[in-house]
């Protein structure tokens, strides 16, 4: 097991009577991409703001490189908030320089890094442009540059792909993977499950201030493997009605989704199917993170309601 960059231990944060983080414990390994998932208002932003040391938890601890998180660590963290923010009337160059200096860079260092990243983003010609002259996507790139310019060892990206065209999404992904290979740790908070599945080694699912699921993406997916099968065929699908003890989850003209709890049932189903229809494909449905997300959140909602009522 690799060393952890961030260790969150029993963190609680309350706003008035509302508990935004309720006893959350997490560990994020160095050099990995970590997915932070959860419905809107689940408490992700609160957690992120504690990791970026914007505010401190009421109780519990956050460790950064085995040290309690402190003010100096801010220079080692790059944060791209979901709501982007730049000074609208400033030039790209001034803007990037200002944020870089606030992260402890000198003017010279900032300019060298800025030239590199502007070129990488295909934005060399924007330097003197004012932020409000740029399109949303362009502003997004500038904001991204301000996040990574100071070469932080931890990147916290909140919905980094929103508002980008597919080409630029790919550009951002390439850069994120590149940074990971350089040993950076990246926390990715997003609703786009495919991205998490593609990019992240592990993830945590937050709901109503609780961490309701966490772990390695692949192993969690294995845990949630169901006994749902998909059959593609040509012919009449009515035969399924004659089999007892199976669950029909979906029925279309050329496909069926069925729950087959036992190996016997699977065999019985296939035998019947072969007799009646021409089979094109028969496969086990792997749960997507999306499915797991919905399932877990719903279950969580149910048990929570059960408790409160």
């Amino acid at each position, binding site marked *: 097991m690799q060393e952890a960059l961030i260790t969150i231990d029993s963190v609680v944060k309350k706003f008035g009577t509302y508990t935004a983080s309720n006893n959350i414990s997490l560990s994020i390994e160095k050099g990995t991409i970590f997915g932070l998932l959860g419905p809107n208002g689940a408490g992700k932003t609160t957690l992120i*703001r504690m990791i*970026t*040391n*914007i*505010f401190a938890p009421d109780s519990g601890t956050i460790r950064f490189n085995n040290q309690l998180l402190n*003010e100096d660590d*801010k*220079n080692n*963290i790059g*944060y791209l*908030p979901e*709501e*982007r*923010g*730049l*000074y*609208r009337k*400033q030039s790209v160059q001034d803007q990037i320089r*200002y*944020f870089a*200096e*606030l*992260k*402890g860079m*000198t003017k010279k260092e900032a300019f060298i890094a800025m030239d590199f990243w502007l070129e990488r983003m295909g934005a060399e010609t924007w330097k003197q442009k004012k932020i409000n002259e740029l399109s949303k996507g362009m502003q997004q790139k500038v*904001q991204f540059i*301000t996040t990574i310019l100071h070469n932080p060892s931890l990147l916290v990206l909140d919905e980094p792909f929103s508002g980008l065209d597919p080409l630029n999404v790919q550009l951002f992904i390439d850069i994120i993977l590149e940074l990971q290979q350089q040993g950076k740790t990246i926390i990715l908070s997003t609703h786009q499950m495919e991205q998490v599945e593609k990019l992240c080694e592990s993830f945590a699912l937050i709901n109503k201030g609780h961490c309701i699921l966490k772990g390695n993406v692949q192993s969690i997916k294995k845990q949630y493997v169901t006994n749902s099968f998909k059959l593609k065929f040509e012919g009449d699908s009515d035969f399924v009605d004659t089999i007892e003890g199976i669950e029909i989850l979906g029925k279309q003209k050329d496909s069926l989704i069925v729950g087959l709890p036992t190996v016997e049932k699977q065999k019985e189903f296939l035998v019947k199917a072969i007799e009646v229809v021409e089979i094109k494909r028969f496969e086990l449905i792997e749960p997507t993170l999306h499915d797991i997300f919905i399932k877990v959140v719903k279950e969580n909602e149910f048990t929570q309601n059960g408790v409160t009522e």
Partner: protein
Amino acid sequence: MKSKIFIIIRHEFLAKVKSKGFILSTFLAPVGMMMLIVVPIVVALLASDTTKKSIAIVDQNTEVSKQLVHSDPSTYFNSTLSIDSLQSLVKESKIDGYIVIPTTIDSLKTIQYFSNTAGSLTQVESIENSLEKTVRNVRMKQSGIDSTVLKDINAKITVDVKKISTKGIENYQTKELAAIGYVAGMLIYIMILLYGMYVSRGVIEEKANRIVEVMASSVTPFQLMLGKIIGIGSVGLFQILLWISMVLVLGIVIPLVLALIPGMTVTPSPEMVSALSQSKMQGMNGMMGATPSVLTPSIGGFQIPTISPLLVFVFLGNFVVGYFMYSSLFAGVGAAVDQESDAQQLQGPIMIPIIIPVLLMMNVVMDPNGTMSVILSLIPFFSPTLMVVRVAVSEVPVWQIIASYVGMIAMFFVFVRAAAKIYRIGILMYGKKVTLGEMFKWIFQKN
């Protein structure tokens, strides 16, 4: 590591100083000030010109009409026309009106003025004044008072105030000092209010544009707030210093130019010449020489009084301290709202203590060392404006000046701590209308 707060101060300062608004206001504000002084004078001159009346005097008593016409020949003229023809002249607006003066004026109490318009109050008053004066003179003459005696009786008496100080007996320019005090007080008030609002607006802008979250991930909220306050405040100080140097430059250049132009109608008075040579010397000694009597040219009888270095010092000091005291509150309010329109009602409680001294300023100018003025100027909320007024108008004991600073600085520490708490919570809170009550809760909330 270069201090992050310094980076914020520099950023705020440069962003503001480079803006068109700053450059315009720096150069237009003095022009505006001049306009405020010059325009009423010009308007008054123009107004008196256009309202010049031609009023016919029909007189059975020649002595009164003679003197009346003599007192203001451009308004009054003698007429021998009949009442009927005068009436038609008035109707046709050829003349403004006429007055009939009876033969005997011994028991004269009212005189009728016939005009095609009702006549404004000032018009009637001016006719009343000149008639009263003329009739009084004629009556006195008739009762045997000699014309030389009459002159003595009518002589105007002005009070020339002298001040006894350690330097001996000096001229005391009461009216001029009052004007200076009033202008200085107003300027402090405007600058504190304006720059306080800039702080509020800056905070709201950062919050509305969501810059604040990125900032907060780089610096502490307190650094951010203090950096903004100091940055914007130094812009205000810079602007005031620019104005002071403008005044100094103009004060030296204008008399020089006036003196160099031959045949000027304005001949330099003796004290002007001496002031001129003094200012030349001062220029050589490096502008802000120890002798404070900058210039005393007279413009239309108004002597520009000397501005003491103490006044300049207290003015700058009060701006800085007063600004710090109030701007931290403005920052707190800015942080508590989402947009500028929401800020107004929360700004109310801050504006009241800034505005109250403006209403009291006249009283303080009238009686700068009265108990009321002393007490008011020592209340930290009012000190920034009222102490400047008092220092401008009179001699204030040093202990009072020091006490006012102690009070303001203590208040600043109270305010900045409260504001920091509001700020820290407010900047990251969106979509909720915060009430004053909630803000107080934040202040007293533990951590």
